[in-house]
């Protein structure tokens, strides 16, 4: 989930245009049983260079499959409402690129093509990558590349202070306190009131042995207490409750935070600037504990739009996920390729990607425990984080309240 949520303004017009285009293209492309000559695709890769590359890849893969692809790109927070609206008219785009925690919502409608039934080859993919595309034991979505979270450190600031990148929670706390000087805070992360905040917290929750279904467990409370203590001790600004991951990155770039949690997609942004940084795996509760990061990234899914269209769409998807395209996609977005051998090669080439590649095999699907109920619980967790950090309740009280949103098993 790379992009922020602050794009509410431009929505109306583009949504209307998209709706119009969509109806138009499906009207021409679909139709009564004739040769399929065009397919539709929808994604939210609006930023360059992703925008241009997505377009080019779709076009090339369309040519290979002998179809023209009409692609529509929308702002991120507009994609799901738009897809749902399309679904209500049985007019979903043939190919759609969805943020993985949203997939169960779409899959639960029954509008998506099961990819395993369609004979889609998944050889060489990380099993963990396939899990994020799975809903009710059926594969509906497949990621060209995935991302995850790691700890970014400002090399110069850490060297000056003689601090090593922390590996455990204890070390993290000490390092954050040590690095807090004047205008610079030791550490920063996004604790904003929606999914971006929740997913930044999940590695702490999971690596301490807690689950998303028992939010009031002592392990979960302990994880949230770590965060609230960091804020209380002044090592982390209380403003994190309003910071998206992009804001956190800005703080790090402006040297207002010596360390931050962020995703691999920030690597190109950081490389454009004059800053020396290091990337290490996220700290775990105790030395030797297993890290557990949520798996991020988007998955391609195919709509049930009838035999021949589906077949063409599968062909296009197979091309999008070819080794060459996957490598290009990963390099461009700073994502980890979904196939293990490609990912290993990338880690050797680019050491900064190594911590992200390392985390993929054990990375978890956020929706594994909760399926389509994930958005509800995610929003309750984000609330709990904010309550604990913004000073209106203890971690224990906040999580007890969040637990009420977990559906009874």
């Amino acid at each position, binding site marked *: 989930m790379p992009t922020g949520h602050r794009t509410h303004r431009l929505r109306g017009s583009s949504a209307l245009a998209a709706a119009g285009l969509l109806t138009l293209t499906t009207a021409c492309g679909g139709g009564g049983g004739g040769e399929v000559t065009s397919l539709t695709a929808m994604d939210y890769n609006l930023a360059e260079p992703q925008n241009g590359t997505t377009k080019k890849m779709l076009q090339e893969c369309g040519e290979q499959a002998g179809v023209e692809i009409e692609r529509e790109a929308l702002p991120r927070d507009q994609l799901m409402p738009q897809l*749902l609206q399309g679904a209500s008219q049985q007019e979903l785009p043939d190919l759609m690129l969805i943020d993985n925690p949203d997939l169960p919502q779409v899959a639960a409608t029954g509008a998506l093509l099961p990819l395993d039934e369609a004979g889609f080859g998944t050889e060489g993919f990380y099993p963990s990558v396939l899990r994020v595309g799975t809903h009710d034991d059926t594969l509906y979505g497949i990621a060209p590349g995935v991302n995850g979270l790691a700890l970014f450190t400002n090399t110069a600031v850490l060297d000056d202070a003689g601090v090593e990148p922390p590996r455990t929670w204890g070390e993290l706390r000490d390092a954050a306190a040590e690095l807090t000087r004047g205008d610079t805070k030791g550490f920063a992360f996004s604790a904003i*009131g929606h999914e971006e905040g929740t997913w930044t917290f999940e590695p702490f929750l999971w690596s301490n042995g807690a689950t998303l279904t028992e939010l009031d467990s002592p392990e979960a409370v302990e994880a949230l207490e770590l965060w609230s203590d960091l804020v209380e001790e002044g090592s982390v600004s209380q403003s994190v409750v309003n910071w998206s991951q992009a804001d956190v990155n800005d703080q790090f770039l402006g040297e207002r935070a010596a360390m931050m949690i962020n995703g691999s997609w920030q690597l190109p942004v950081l490389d454009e600037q004059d800053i020396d940084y290091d990337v290490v795996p996220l700290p775990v509760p105790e030395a030797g504990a297993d890290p557990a990061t949520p798996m991020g990234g988007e998955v391609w899914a195919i709509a049930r739009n009838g035999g021949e269209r589906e077949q063409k769409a599968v062909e296009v998807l197979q091309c999008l996920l070819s080794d060459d395209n996957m490598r290009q996609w990963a390099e461009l977005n700073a994502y980890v390729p979904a196939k293990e051998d490609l990912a290993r090669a990338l880690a050797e080439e680019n050491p900064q990607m190594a911590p992200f590649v390392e985390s993929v095999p054990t990375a978890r699907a956020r929706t594994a425990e909760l399926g389509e109920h994930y958005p509800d619980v995610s929003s309750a967790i984000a609330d709990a984080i904010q*309550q604990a*950090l913004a000073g209106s309740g203890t971690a224990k009280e906040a999580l007890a309240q969040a637990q009420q949103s977990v559906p009874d098993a």
Partner: protein
Amino acid sequence: MAARIGFLAPIVVYLAAFFGYPLVANITMAMREYTAASFYTGEAPFVGLANYAAVLSDPVFGTAMANTAVFTAASLAFQFGIGLALAVFFQRHFPLNGVLRSLLLIPWLLPLVVSGTVWRWIFDQEYGVLNQTLLGLGVIDSAVPWLSSTAMALPSVTVANIWVGIPFNMVILYGGLQSIPAHLYEAAALDGAGPWQRFRHVTWPLLRPVSAVVLMLGLVYTLKVFDVIMVLTQGGPANATQTLTTWSYSLSFGELDFGLGAAVGNLLIIIALVFALFYLRGLRTFGASPARKGR
């Protein structure tokens, strides 16, 4: 007769298509379990008032109601008070009157997303100009978390909204003041009325119809404020600035539970309607008052 129908038809069609249909759709949607799957399957089971029950028993409901009430009342009171003071002030003749008055309109001309973003900088805990100034003056000892504490967020967001609303109040009230005949003030002065008495017995009663309109419009605008809160805090932290509007949005488009979102939206409409009825009743009273004859 045909001409009359031809004259009315466009507005009737317009109202039915753009007001009637969405309103009815929203009311029926609020009585269904309308989730993401409903869009595809077309199945949204009728649940009667269950969505309302769920909304009313949600702990966020109390918070959102209280926030909406405080936000609206405080915004209205200060926007109106400050707007009226400025309007009275600008009635006097002094150099640069027109220039200053135009400058005060700027908050109104700025897109809300722009003003919201600027206020976000002003309120920033570490580097915001507000904390820097207050710290420099020695008013506070440590930076105030304007937008990031549950205690301060609502007052801060309200202040930003007040700033946005002042020009509107000032302009309309200034217009209202201009329509009060000058000879009434002269007569009052001859009778020995001081400035306060002139305001209390001439300006205030003659300005009442205009004030009622300003307050009513202000109420409707403030109840549905969305942009300012979204840009500043997105309803957070921990729902501290969640109003009925932002909550309805987050239920519908965040949690994709459109039935619940629609129910909250309808509650908002009912609240606005109640106030509109008060206003209409008030208008009838004004109609009979001598205030109208002043023109």
